[in-house]
């Protein structure tokens, strides 16, 4: 209890407020959606014009998309007649019954129908592993890593290609197709390219001439040749040199090609991160007596990789879309199965091809956007330490 408080309570002066006035609301033009509109979209006459133009463009594209994919779309039917204007006598958009009938083919390719549960288990195992590893508050993420990098690849291999000894029929990889192949190729590329890329990047900056030269030659050679050429050579030239029963499976050839290719690009991305580390970090690590691998593992790589996350994800997204190139080797990835399906005379109609490509676009968009969002979230989480 202080003096002043007591004094005020005694001497009640009529013209002095004893309570705080609520702050007045800012003018309507300075807050809320209206202010946002004014400031961001309508600040100058030029911006007003641009806003109107872009708005009109968006509305037009949005309407056309909705019209094709939803409003005019055909939802039921048994063959091409359902999706043809001359039969239905109305404007026709996407032909969904075609996609519906071909959905299993898009997912599994020619994988034997009685064995498709094995592919489902593979998808489930992979999804579980991804969620476990990527969600930050999941328990025992070290176990999750072991599960993802050891258990999943081994069991998937046995599950998908079969092992007669435990009663799983052998399924030749020429029968694999659709989303299955896209996911297998992309995950092998993604999982192999990061560790291999880090090793190559470290090799390129190594003091040992043999290691450095080998890394430089590998990276420059692989980066200097288009992926299409690598795959084409593997499919066409390899069988000419190696007897048929010794030459590896087509899918394996493509997997190796893509994994090596992605590693070379990843190496350059990681090297950029390594070079951005100030020399003091290396010197500091050495000063406290860390060996080379400890220094890399504990000090340099955690910082370098953090810097390169946007580029790593960029490489992953590029890789995910590059998987469509395996069609060169006669492998039926998702895009190829769509390409094949749109030729089917049973569904031949003017809209069939467009519908098929729309499905491919949606699939790739969903996956690539998910990757890019996750990278963004991770980046923000790691950036918090910088803002402190």
């Amino acid at each position, binding site marked *: 209890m202080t003096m002043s408080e007591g004094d005020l309570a005694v001497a009640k002066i009529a013209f002095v407020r004893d309570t705080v006035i609520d702050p007045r609301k800012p003018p309507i033009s300075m807050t809320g959606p209206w202010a946002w509109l004014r400031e961001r979209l309508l600040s100058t006459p030029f911006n007003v014009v641009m806003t109107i133009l872009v708005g009109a463009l968006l509305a037009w594209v949005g309407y056309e998309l909705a019209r094709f994919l939803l409003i005019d779309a055909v939802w039921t039917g048994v063959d091409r007649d359902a999706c043809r204007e001359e039969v239905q006598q109305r404007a026709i958009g996407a032909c969904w019954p075609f996609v519906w*009938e071909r959905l299993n*083919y898009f997912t599994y390719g020619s994988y034997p129908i009685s064995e498709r549960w094995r592919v489902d288990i593979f998808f489930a195992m992979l999804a579980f592993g991804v969620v476990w590893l990527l969600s930050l508050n999941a328990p025992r993420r070290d176990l999750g890593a072991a599960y993802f990098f050891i258990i999943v690849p081994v069991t998937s291999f046995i599950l998908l290609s079969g092992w007669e000894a435990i009663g799983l029929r052998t399924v030749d990889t020429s029968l694999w197709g659709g989303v299955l192949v896209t996911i297998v190729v992309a995950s092998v590329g993604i999982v192999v390219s990061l560790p291999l890329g880090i090793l190559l990047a470290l090799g390129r900056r190594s003091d040992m001439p043999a290691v450095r030269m080998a890394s430089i030659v590998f990276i420059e050679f692989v980066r200097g040749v288009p992926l299409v050429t690598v795959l084409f050579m593997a499919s066409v030239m390899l069988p000419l040199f190696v007897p048929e029963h010794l*030459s590896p499976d087509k899918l394996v050839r493509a997997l190796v090609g893509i994994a090596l290719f992605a590693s070379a690009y990843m190496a350059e991305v990681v090297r950029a991160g390594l070079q951005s580390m100030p020399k003091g970090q290396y010197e500091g690590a050495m000063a406290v007596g860390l060996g080379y691998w400890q220094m890399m593992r504990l000090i340099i790589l955690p910082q370098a990789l953090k810097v390169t996350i946007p580029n790593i994800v960029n490489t992953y997204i590029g890789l995910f879309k590059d998987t469509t190139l395996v069609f060169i080797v006669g492998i039926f990835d998702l895009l190829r199965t769509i390409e094949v399906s749109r030729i*089917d005379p049973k569904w031949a109609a003017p809209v069939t091809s467009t519908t098929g490509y729309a499905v491919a676009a949606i699939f790739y968009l969903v996956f690539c956007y998910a990757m890019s969002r996750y990278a963004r979230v991770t980046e923000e989480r790691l950036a918090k330490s910088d803002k402190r």
Partner: protein
Amino acid sequence: MYKIASLFALAVLLAAQGASAQTLKTVKDRGALNCGANGTLAGFGLPDAQGAWTGLDVDFCRAVAAAIFDDPNKVKFVALTAKDRFTALQSGEVDVLARNTTWTSSRDTSLGLNFTGVNYYDGQGFLVRKSLKVNSALELNGASVCVQQGTTTELNLADYFRASKMTLKTVTFATANEAVKAYDAGRCDAYTTDASGLYSERLRLASAGDHIILPEIISKEPLGPAVRHGDDQWFDVVKWVHFAMVNAEELGITQKNVGEMLKSDNPEIKRLLGTEGAFGEQLGLTKDWVVRIVGKVGNYGEIFEKNVGQGSPMKIARGLNGLWNKGGLQYAPPVR
């Protein structure tokens, strides 16, 4: 001296036997036929909604497998592009190439292929709008024609118009898909490609009924399966599978009635079905090889109708692919 000569002869014979028996033996040991197929051509090689391969060329490979294994499903189909198909055959990646391949002299000789027959007589044709009121390709003077770039089709087109002293305006596109779209949008008077392709592309047009395929065929495109040089026994096997299917159609043997036909008294049928003679064994197969082919896959007419004819959306008429005694070109030497 005599002894040495006979030993030498035996060695040569064995070596020849070894070389020639290789592919059939390899296929039998492997337990499956490796068949190079198209994978993206309706009616000839295309996986269906269940992922099972369908088509005329595909059924031909099934017939070869049926003749060897009595099981049409012992085939591994390898999807090949136009570029890598010959390498795949030469390198032994596939045992037989059934991928709508045109039989030409250079392919038969310098590429080292042996074409085993013609399972589809194709040729380049024209698709036009009915409203154009044109009934013959010779009335196309001054017409604009949509065509795929860099193909023999484009060259044939120019040759034909020059030989017929007509003027031509070609509109070229990188892919067949674009060319058809442009034709449908009215950018050209006609669209040209192989006739079998015209039938499947026509289905894709906005109003398929408003277009006709002109009767003129301006090029020869005999499509057939091929094998490698240097294995005569395998060449014979693949060649005679086709002949057997044509002979079966000619003699009226179908997938349905092949069981009854075994009791037939017709000597030609008896020889074909192996109830008389040992013609299958001469090929390195079994006596009932044709029963297996026709029973499991069908005769030539049946697989034609199922894949490209009346049983398919393409509805191509037999035309040149009819039997020789019905106005077509399909003719098979007799089994005897």
